[in-house]
């Protein structure tokens, strides 16, 4: 079975390939989502991305129950499919040996496998399917995750091969990676989307599980060593974490004046929440709400402070894109 294999330079775990993405780099793009992330952000909207290895998800809304179906229970050799009183099922994840026979058996796709081992060529063939749209729109491939550089060799080879096939490349990163790994990827990049979540190391550690020193160091070095690379800095604005003038202001001041920078703020949303249920995990950040007024204040401030900078880089309008990403629509 594929899941027993390891990620190497030519193969890696991919949990989704999403075509027609418009908000993660220029033009019409295909996003390749790689498994694995060194951070554990409380607001994470892709919990299925965190572990590098494959995992099974169960969407009860799609499950038609054991009365009509029960195929998964019949296929399972570990007794890990437990029938509930209402005819629905749950997975006993301790008993599960991750053979994923249940996923193959499920007729309604209530059970899905996040993380499939794919070769560089297989991924690129998928990406090239929309090639005709990239040419007209300036789009291409975006690697995302998780943190795509958690599978460093695979990510690098994907970017390198995409470039060889004349596909525009973009990488979304949390920045928490070894500089050498980041550097190796940058040689094959047209655009980088770099997350800066907070300038406060203590808070950063509390909300994401890691401190921000490595991230900020990497960012400074990136600006120094790859000044011509187009960079879009992104901040997820999360209530109770960084939705203040001070927090966002500090980030804006940090990036201001650096070469080839665009700044984007992504409003907090909780569309990823159902996926926690699918994975039998708990969403901890459940009761917060981002105030619309607050968001527009922050936007105004960022626009004002970066306006000049953006004008230095771009002859036209400052491109401070303020729309939020949406887990319903994925954009």
């Amino acid at each position: 079975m594929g899941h027993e294999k390891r990620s190497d330079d030519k193969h890696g775990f991919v949990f989704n390939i999403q075509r027609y993405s418009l908000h993660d780099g220029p033009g019409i793009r295909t996003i390749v989502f790689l498994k694995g992330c060194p951070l554990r952000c409380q607001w994470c909207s892709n919990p299925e991305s965190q572990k590098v290895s494959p995992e099974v998800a169960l969407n009860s809304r799609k499950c038609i129950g054991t009365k009509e179906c029960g195929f998964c229970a019949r296929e399972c050799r570990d007794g890990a499919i437990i029938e509930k009183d209402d005819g629905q099922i749950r997975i006993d994840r301790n008993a599960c040996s991750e053979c994923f026979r249940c996923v193959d058996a499920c007729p309604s796709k209530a059970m899905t496998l996040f993380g499939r081992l794919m070769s560089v060529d297989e991924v690129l063939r998928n990406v090239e399917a929309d090639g005709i749209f990239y040419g007209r729109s300036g789009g291409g491939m975006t690697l995302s995750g998780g943190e795509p550089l958690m599978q460093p060799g695979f990510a690098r080879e994907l970017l390198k091969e995409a470039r060889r096939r004349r596909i525009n490349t973009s990488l979304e990163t949390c920045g928490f990676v070894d500089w050498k790994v980041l550097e190796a990827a940058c040689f094959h990049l047209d655009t980088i989307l770099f997350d800066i979540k907070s300038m406060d190391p203590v808070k950063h550690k509390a909300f994401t599980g890691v401190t921000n020193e490595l991230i900020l160091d990497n960012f400074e070095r990136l600006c120094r060593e790859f000044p011509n690379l187009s960079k879009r800095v992104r901040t997820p604005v999360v209530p109770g974490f960084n939705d203040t003038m001070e927090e966002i202001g500090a980030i804006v001041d940090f990036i201001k004046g650096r070469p080839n920078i665009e700044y984007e703020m992504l409003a907090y949303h909780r569309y990823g929440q159902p996926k926690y249920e699918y994975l039998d995990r708990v969403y901890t950040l459940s009761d917060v709400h981002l105030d619309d007024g607050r968001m527009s204040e922050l936007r105004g401030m960022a626009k004002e402070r970066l306006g000049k900078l953006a004008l230095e880089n771009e002859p036209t309008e400052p491109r401070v894109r303020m729309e939020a990403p949406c887990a319903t629509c994925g954009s």
Partner: protein
Amino acid sequence: MNTCCETLSPQEQRIQEEIKGIFNYEGRERIYKILNSFKNERPVIDIERARYFTESFKQTEGQPLVLRWAKALKHIAENITVYIDDNQLIAGRVGCQGRYGILYPELDGDFLDLALKDLPSRVESPFNISQADADLVIDQVGPYWKGKTFHEDLAASLPEDTLKLTYDPKDPLRSRFIVNETASFRSSIQWVHDFEKVLKRGFKGLREEAVEKLNSLDPLSPLANVKKRPFLEAIIILCDAVVLWAKRHSALAAEMAKKESDPVRKKELETMAAICAWVPENPARTFHEAVQSQWFTQMFSRLEQKTGTVVSNGRMDQYFYPYYQKDKQEGRLTDEQATELIELMWVGMAQFIDLYISPTGGAFNEGYAHWEAVTVGGQTRTGLDATNELTYIFLRSKREFPLNYPDLAARIHSRSPERYLYEVAETIKEGSGFPKLINDEEVIPLHLSKGATFEEIYDYAVSGCSESRMPNRDTYTSGCAYINFAAALEMVLYNGRMQIYGDEQISVPTGDPRKFKTWEEFWNAFITQQTNFIKHAFIQQALIIELRARHFAAPLGSALHDLCMKNMIDLHQPVIEGGINLGYFEYIGYGTVIDSLAAIRKLVFEEKKLTMDQLLKALEANFEGHEAIRQMLMNSPCYGNSDMYADSIAKGIDKAALEFTKTYAKELGVHLDLRYVPFTSHVPFGKVVSATPNGRKAWTPLADGASASHGADVNGPTAILLSNFNSKNYDYRERAARLLNIKLSPRCVAGEEGTAKLVSFIRTWCDLKLWHIQFNIINKETLLAAQREPEKYRGLLVRVAGYSAYFVDLSPDLQNDIIARTEHAYV
């Protein structure tokens, strides 16, 4: 809810404001006064056309048909009530004030009496009629036509096997919705006149041409005496009729001007009186005259005959341009005035309803549809980009005043300027479904291969849903078959029978599918059924061509057609020398069939997860108690995802259909090309098809046009375009239009960046040489809200098939169909 998914289209914003009582009529006070005078009113049937047409026909029995037709039109022109509407600057309507439809008893006189009783209560597009009018039609109009209509003739002439697939053999009024003829609910397919001819020469010029020809006929020639003379006489009578009708408007306007106390309106009426006295008899001299001349011609063509979806308006931005330019240069016209004049046409169009009497016609054309296309953009006769200032006025008008008429169609080519594409994209973003896009890069080479010259096809106009016309070269007017291929699939499953029609052997037996050992056997059985349907469609068509020539004439259409005038022959005659006969047959249920075949191939024959017996039991039970099987079927490869497993099946069935017509169309002397344009027929067609192996439940709508089945397209809109590309057989010239619906959430196209990406999407669509595309930019929540509270959403326009209609005017079935189309939110 997060703000990002609450992005509203401009149309949605406007409706929300209107719900709060905020209306913005600024700069369009006159237009809105007219619009508000008829909006939301149930249409009325006006019987005058039917009455005078029949009166005249009673007097002319035995005379040549084209002459009878011209005389009937003259009789109508002399007697029909003429109107000048309040606030209007353009004159000419062919029925009472408000929303109205008119009757064509030559088509459906045999069942008018029955139909008139049902119309007010019909679910799809109801109409009102007064008791006195209904009585008049039932007593004086209907009885004359009994035994004389085309529909009766056709039903009587169909061979038994064809009849079974066409009508209920016991009641030919009832379509079986299997191999559905459309020739009996319209006397012509969608059409476009050469309006430029009227603007430049006037009906006086056309009349002079006919007189000249008449004078130079060989007096000894029997053919000249029997055929050409009556034709030319008919043209002369027709020209007189149109002019007479226009002058009655002039007289009325003058009379009203005398009585008018408001000096501003008095002046307007005097101007109208002067214009109607001059055009359409004489060549137009100003933009206002050109608009009036076109309008009279367009309206009179409705009196002539029932053209499917109404005669389209051709390339307005081209033929009006010289008048616009001249008026602008000479300081007679501002852009605001030009915009007002064209919008006065739009509110006029919106009052005419394309009334279908027959239940089949009504079900095919829901939402009071008439696809009265106005074409903009494209290329000039010499192959240059044709965009001009008027093009942008039309687009801006559509954004600022998004009425359901006209059906704006934008031609796109590989060198379409950026500004044009951006304005097209901005107009699409408004959210009312306009414009639809037609691709020059597909239409032009295809027509060249069918015999058009470059000059003719560069100048094509969009016609009806998604078709094209060369107004002086096209000569085929017969309505063609709409074929329910989901029913062909059902015939395979039940060995030539359908669940809804019980044990009756309707199609050829192809054996018990339980005994099929291989996918090839199943595939061959399907192709046998598909071919049998097409065979009977062609039999219908051969008879239709022959019969129509004895039932219909079109002196106006002929007067405006170079080849009819040259050959002195009516447009509805089957052979017109030098013409190109572009007919078609319609593939309905494409996505449904493809997904069903893919599921059978994969689950029954390849993976053997299901037996045919299990499948049939689940289908017969409409999946009750077989949900797991339904889920397996639904989760098999589907068309619309750029997945070659499904797309190669799609290409295979397309090819088999093309092969048939390649072999047999020439026997009929016409092109009968494969088309995927459903009107709204996929809804009534679905109502006769039981559960299908793609997991579709019984009696629900089929997939529309060349779009994916509902909810089956999960890879986004790029994949849908690619599936269309993958499934086309570009090496066959027997291809014609494919209609493609894409639904996007407004969030997808938000902002300047959204516009740019929509433009690049359209550019790629053009590169892929796909024929047609149209967009619904709307939130699903809005549609659901409109179903809950229709009174608040009366103004909500949605894209249906090749046209936009008011959502609340649609039947619940069609509303649900539109809601179920996959919304792509990724853009």
